[in-house]
């Protein structure tokens, strides 16, 4: 696209309520960030599972799909290096009550200006690149937190295994309750197999829990079918402007508000603190950005020997149990870990990684 045309589209968007900077309400829309799996394939077992940063996968049946950044190693659309890769692992016939959908839930603070639920609700445009091994009509929806206001939409994949850019313009909802807090402000669904209970008429607001459009293609219905997306952008206005480029550090920081994974590599430090007793260490980890809410879970590898306490100079004593005890605020977490013996009460010490795989992570996802 000529740059003069891009400028014209920005101007048109600006005239219809869009902004010229920080237009995209989607975080990690270009799928560059994958703190959890670092590009590895996963078959989620916990619904609503987060895979690539900020991207969730909601499902009602396990083992029907794998998800991987850059699955299949196809060439992304021009200007992109990464994509979200969804692969069906079976030929599953979707039941009426089934849900299979890729989703991003947008924090209310980041869509408050759209005025949804008021007479001043702004029009938004969702645009994205999609590539699927299947062709036909696909579906998705925009939905509120209480799942009682939904706007199902459709788009067409015309050519198999070819990147195509799609856009959907949605008149803002003047009804319902749309949170403007740190809760779920807006749910963006891209269906990959939706039961009839959760499918509604395309192109209209409904006071129901619809997460896709009636008649949409089921990706999970074909074994080995693929569905890839990138360049996802949700913006104010009735025009899909060029994908907003944000620098990697900024995008990572935006994602870390919802999930922060600390991976210091072998012999690297997680935190410094003190020996609370001869067997217990206590320390603080500061988060790089204020979390959306106080994290309620601490994740680690599941193997105590991946972690050690370095004390008394260079002595390293492996943990006797995985890191499990924590108290988190918006900006930091205190953690306590245990060793069998050998610490000197009151001395300073550190938690270290015993290999490159060791990590600690905190989640404040929506």
């Amino acid at each position: 696209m000529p740059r003069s045309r891009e400028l014209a589209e920005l101007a048109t968007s600006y005239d219809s309520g869009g902004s010229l900077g920080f237009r995209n309400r989607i975080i990690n829309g270009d799928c560059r960030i994958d703190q959890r799996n670092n590009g590895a394939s996963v078959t989620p077992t916990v619904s609503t599972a987060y895979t690539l940063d900020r991207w969730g996968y909601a499902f009602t049946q396990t083992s029907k799909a794998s998800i991987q950044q850059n699955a299949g190693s196809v060439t992304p659309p021009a200007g992109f290096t990464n994509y979200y890769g969804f692969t069906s692992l079976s030929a599953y016939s979707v039941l009426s009550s089934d849900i299979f959908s890729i989703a991003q839930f947008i924090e209310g603070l980041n869509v408050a200006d759209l005025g949804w639920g008021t007479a001043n609700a702004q029009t938004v445009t969702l645009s994205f690149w999609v590539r699927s091994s299947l062709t036909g009509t696909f579906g998705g929806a925009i939905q509120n937190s209480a799942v009682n206001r939904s706007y199902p939409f459709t788009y067409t994949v015309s050519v198999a295994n070819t990147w195509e850019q799609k856009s959907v313009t949605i008149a803002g909802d003047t009804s319902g309750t749309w949170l403007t807090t740190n809760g779920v402000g807006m749910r963006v669904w891209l269906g990959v197999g939706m039961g009839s209970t959760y499918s509604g008429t395309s192109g209209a607001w409904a006071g129901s829990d619809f997460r896709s459009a009636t008649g949409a293609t089921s990706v999970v219905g074909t074994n080995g079918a693929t569905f890839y997306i990138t360049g996802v952008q949700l913006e104010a206005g009735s025009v899909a402007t060029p994908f907003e480029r944000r620098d990697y550090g900024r995008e990572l920081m935006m994602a870390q508000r919802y999930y922060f994974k600390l991976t210091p590599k072998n012999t690297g430090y997680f935190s410094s603190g003190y020996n609370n007793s001869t067997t217990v260490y206590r320390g603080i980890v500061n988060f790089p950005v204020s979390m959306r809410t106080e994290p309620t879970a601490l994740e680690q590898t599941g193997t105590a020997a991946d972690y050690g306490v370095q004390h008394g100079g260079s002595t390293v004593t492996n943990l006797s149990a995985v890191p499990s005890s924590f108290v988190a605020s918006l900006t930091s977490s205190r953690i306590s870990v245990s060793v069998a013996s050998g610490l000197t009460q009151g001395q300073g010490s550190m938690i270290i990684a015993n290999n490159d795989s060791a990590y600690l992570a905190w989640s404040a996802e929506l």
Partner: protein
Amino acid sequence: MIYKILPRQEGEPQTFARIDDDGLCRLTCTEDYPEFQKWIEAGNEPLPPDEVSGE
């Protein structure tokens, strides 16, 4: 996957360990963790903490 009550540390909230199907604990959480709440709402109960033998 199940959850187990962890021994409570002084001055810290009650935490629970998620025990995955392979027997490993990769996540601990407070009672406010959404997935834990869903698991409880489904009618499950966390296992009691391991007994600590006296000296």
